[in-house]
């Protein structure tokens, strides 16, 4: 086998191993906290706060941590609780229970503009 082919085979083997590792831990993945938080953020906030949405586009880094904390502590009840979720057709105050808001807040503070952030390309 040529070196090129051997490397390609090894690369594929490694890729398969990586995928198996990821797939093999599917159960754990389903319970993965951060994936759930990202999905929650998308379903609860991004559903409106996106470029073609009904509200101003937002990402976790749109505000600093203190501002996210203030939003959940002071502003949510007055500005968002009575708004209707565009898909679930229920008030946000009902959908986003205190426990869910706590999870959202943690996710947003952890990824706020002033949080310690990875230094990689493309994000």
């Amino acid at each position, binding site marked *: 086998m040529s070196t090129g082919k051997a490397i390609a085979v090894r690369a594929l083997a490694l890729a398969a191993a*990586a995928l198996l590792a990821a797939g093999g831990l599917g159960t754990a993945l389903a319970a993965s906290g951060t*994936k759930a938080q990202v999905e929650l953020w998308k379903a609860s906030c991004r559903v409106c706060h996106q470029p073609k949405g009904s509200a101003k586009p937002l990402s976790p880094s749109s505000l600093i941590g203190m501002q996210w904390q203030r939003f959940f502590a002071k*502003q949510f009840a007055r500005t968002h609780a009575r708004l209707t979720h565009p898909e679930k057709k229920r008030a946000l105050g009902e959908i986003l229970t205190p426990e869910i808001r706590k999870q959202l807040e943690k996710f947003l503070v952890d990824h706020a503009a002033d949080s310690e952030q990875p230094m990689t*390309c493309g994000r």
Partner: protein
Amino acid sequence: MSERRVFSIVAASIVLLAAGVPAATTHAATAAKTAPATTEQRTGTAAAADKDGDVSADATRDAVEDLEQRIEDLERRLNEPERHAALDRLLFQGDFRFEAHTIQAKIPDHFDGMVLQNLIVKTLFYFQQVGAPPESIADLDAQIESHYADWLLFTSKLTFGQLKEAMAGFDPALQQQLFAMYLPAAFVPGANADNDILYTNRLRLRIRARVGDNVTFDGRLSMYKVWGDSTGVRVFNGQPTTINIDGTTANVPNSDILRVERAYFSWNDIGGLPVYLSIGRRPSTGGVPLNFRHDEPRGGTPAGSVIDFQFDGLTFGWHINDFSTLRLCYGVGYESGFGNGQVLKNPADRLDDVQLLGINWDVWDTDDMFVQLTVAKAFDVTDGFNGLVVLPADPVTGQAIPAPVILRYTPSAHLGDLDLASVVFQRSDGPVDWFVSANYVESSPNGVTTPFGGLFSDPFEAPQDRSGSMFYGGVRLRFNDDRTKIGVEYNHGSRYWFNFAAAEDEIIAPKTQTRGDVWEVYLTHRIENRFLVKLDYIDYSYDYSGSGWLLGTPKDLETQPVLGFPTYDSARKFALSLMARW
């Protein structure tokens, strides 16, 4: 809280000043429907309140609600300038680290390869002069002393090619006889190489800018030095980090010079597609899983276990989904046509560039689970990269260089290709972070050797295809509300293991380059959110020589090997770090 008071006072003032003026905002307009809008109305309501306490309470409540609405509106409007003000400062983030190290290291019994090479060169000279082999080392020295001018002429004209040819022509029996005579003179008994105390300062300034809707810039300026030295150049001692090359200028202690460690832009969402292009001096150090031991977020794009090296290049990336990114990366390790006097050479003797190509796939990337796959190839690898160094001995003649002269080292030949592959798997389960990593390297030499050797071969050997591997695992426990973390890591590299990790953050040597075993135990604690203390103990146990080198045959350190330069067979370090991040 004082800010809120100021907002309230400002808002109240605005309400009073604006009384009688139609409200400008939607909220204000809404509020105007439910609250008194003019002084006259307020006075009227107040008068009514004097007659009826309930009305007065309602009016007060309405007024308070109105005030709250207006404050709310003001706060919302102030969010942007407040954030902007904060980010104006945060765009220039950074960190400063002080470290104190105590190092205890041992160099094994070995034979000095430079001394041996020097004796062989002297023997060639002796042969030319006398026509017979010497009977002792004293014969060699006597001949040189009595024909010193001839000796100088001989050594000044001797090339590595001639030396290699002469070595090949040596009768094996004679070689054995001469080596038996020379080896005792080249023997170096094992010794300690301790450093009771070594202090370092490291400053890193991160600059971020949002260039446009889809374009960002990220850069980092770094200064890293030991206390008491700013020369920027080190005497070469056999460790790969003692030669200054492009890949290590900012991550190996150098001087008080602030260098551009990273500078790149990312052009995101090109054409509305989930792809990006990033070009510049890459974020290619401190990748997963090397960041855990420093209590830092992921410090670079490629897996740190296989590439921890500064280089210039580009990345084309595809965000497959929110949790997976595939990247094609390209870089240049050596530019042959600039600064190397290529035009002074015959076209046939000129070198090509050294190019690096890789695929880097974040198979799964969330805060609590990370899987990364890397495949990379280095084409036409040379015998080292451009660098600055103080060489203690001439690698051709083995003669000691009498003065600490700074040399610009330039590669002299292509040695072949290197292929690397790596998989990293990391998870966080409750208070435990853990990772495992498997890494592989394979060489495809082209048969060429130079005074520093060939790919995993000595200068006078014929290089063979070699492969090496390295396994790396670690566990970290978080407690005290994640402020305190204690971790243990282990890695093992095989005989022919090599990675591009010369810029790895470790003062003794990059631990993932070790051909042997490394254990590390550390404790980090956040005294303040962004002020950390770290205690670290690291223990290296080397099995083979040449860790971190793609040149030279790795020698078993228990066999009293011939070493071109000394190497550690064990090393351990205690370190205390204090780091301020802002």
